[in-house]
């Protein structure tokens, strides 16, 4: 089953793969905390991106599992106990995953797609492109399925100049992956302390993570 949010084929456009929806009985965010779901979803993303770009990718399962283990540890460290903060934590958790994937670097390129130019995100950084699109797609899937919300990725995700800055900055400070993922997801990034969930004001959170919610929802202010 495809959860496509965009038309496929536009260069740099997010292509949503057929991500597994997890157990029928439980929410996607719970399934996403299982290594088997994570690996299958990641493999689906790689296959979809390979189809889109013509790149031939190779996945190192050990490194992928290491990324998951690191993510799980950090996910549990800052998981909020307040139920109303959980939707906001979805975006933060996706950023944590991007940081771990970039650090573990489980994907390599055996051959580059002949028609993907280096002036596009997918051509400039093929591995990073997989990591970002995977994290954005999982983030969007969880928000949609579990919280009836959706994300609207910004134009920055298609701008190779933003990707130049992205790659250079995360090489120096991996925590900036969280801020850049927020940027790509169309929400206001925290460039100061991106890796600290507790530092984020809740009012800002509702604005950041429900940017596309319907007008009748009461998410615009501090819920108190």
């Amino acid at each position: 089953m495809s959860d496509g949010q965009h038309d496929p084929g536009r260069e740099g456009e997010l292509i949503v793969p057929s991500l597994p929806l997890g157990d029928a009985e439980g929410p996607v965010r719970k399934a996403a905390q299982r290594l088997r779901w994570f690996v299958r979803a990641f493999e689906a993303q790689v296959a979809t991106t390979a189809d889109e770009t013509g790149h031939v990718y190779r996945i190192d399962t050990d490194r992928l599992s290491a990324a998951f283990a690191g993510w799980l540890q950090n996910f549990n460290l800052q998981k909020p106990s307040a139920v109303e903060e959980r939707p906001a934590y979805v975006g933060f958790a996706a950023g944590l995953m991007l940081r771990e994937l970039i650090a573990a670097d489980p994907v390599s390129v055996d051959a580059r797609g002949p028609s993907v130019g280096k002036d596009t995100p997918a051509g400039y950084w093929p591995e990073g492109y997989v990591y970002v699109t995977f994290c954005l797609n999982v983030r969007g899937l969880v928000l949609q399925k579990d919280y009836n919300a959706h994300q609207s990725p910004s134009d920055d995700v298609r701008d190779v100049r933003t990707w130049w800055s992205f790659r250079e900055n995360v090489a120096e400070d991996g925590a900036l992956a969280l801020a850049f993922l927020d940027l790509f997801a169309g929400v206001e990034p925290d460039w100061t302390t991106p890796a600290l969930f507790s530092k984020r004001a809740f009012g800002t959170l509702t604005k950041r993570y429900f940017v596309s919610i319907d007008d009748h929802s009461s998410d615009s202010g501090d819920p108190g």
Partner: protein
Amino acid sequence: MIGKTPPPGTLVAIPLRDALRGAERVWDVTEELLEPVAAILPPALATSLKSALDQAERSALAGLHDPPAHADIARAAHFLTGEDTAVASAEAFARILAYAAERTAASTGGSFLASEGVAVSATLALSGGRTGADRAADIVLALRRAFAVGSVPGTPIRLTADVARGVDVCLFAAALWMLAAREPTEEKEVEVFRLALALTRTLSDQVSEWSKDSDALAHGLRDLSEHV
């Protein structure tokens, strides 16, 4: 003291599989030794030994290296958690362990294997009424004490630091696999073990720490099994 005695048929089948695994190891060692002295030793020696092993592999024990059957996996999982403590279930778990040892050694470049016979004896001898991850931890530690997995299973011989670490990884990964949610096919179960092994290898330092204490080990197994 063994609380349950395996039926007579088992007493033949398990030692034969253990012997075959051991013989393969001997062949590997012999082949390595033969290389530098090939000019001295008669070629017929190497040829006849290889031929004998080829015949043994084509016998009724030819499934030695196949992935475990789905029914075995389910049965072994129930044995590990204490839902089913029958001898046949202990044997199923021993076959799972042998498969796990083979895959772990292959993935880590280690040189060790499991003895189904030692595993059956060690696990059946376990007393106490613990269940779930607690019992799983007890079984892991019992197998460790019995050297059910090692360079020469049943003895501490050649248990170097690398092999000891590999053994800890093998035991933990096997238990983690059994405690994790089941899959409907053998192929998917094998994939789950592969992931359990990858996760365990990533956390091998932590696994070694947990392996010093039964409660810590149980906590680690219980927590991680929900995420495999």
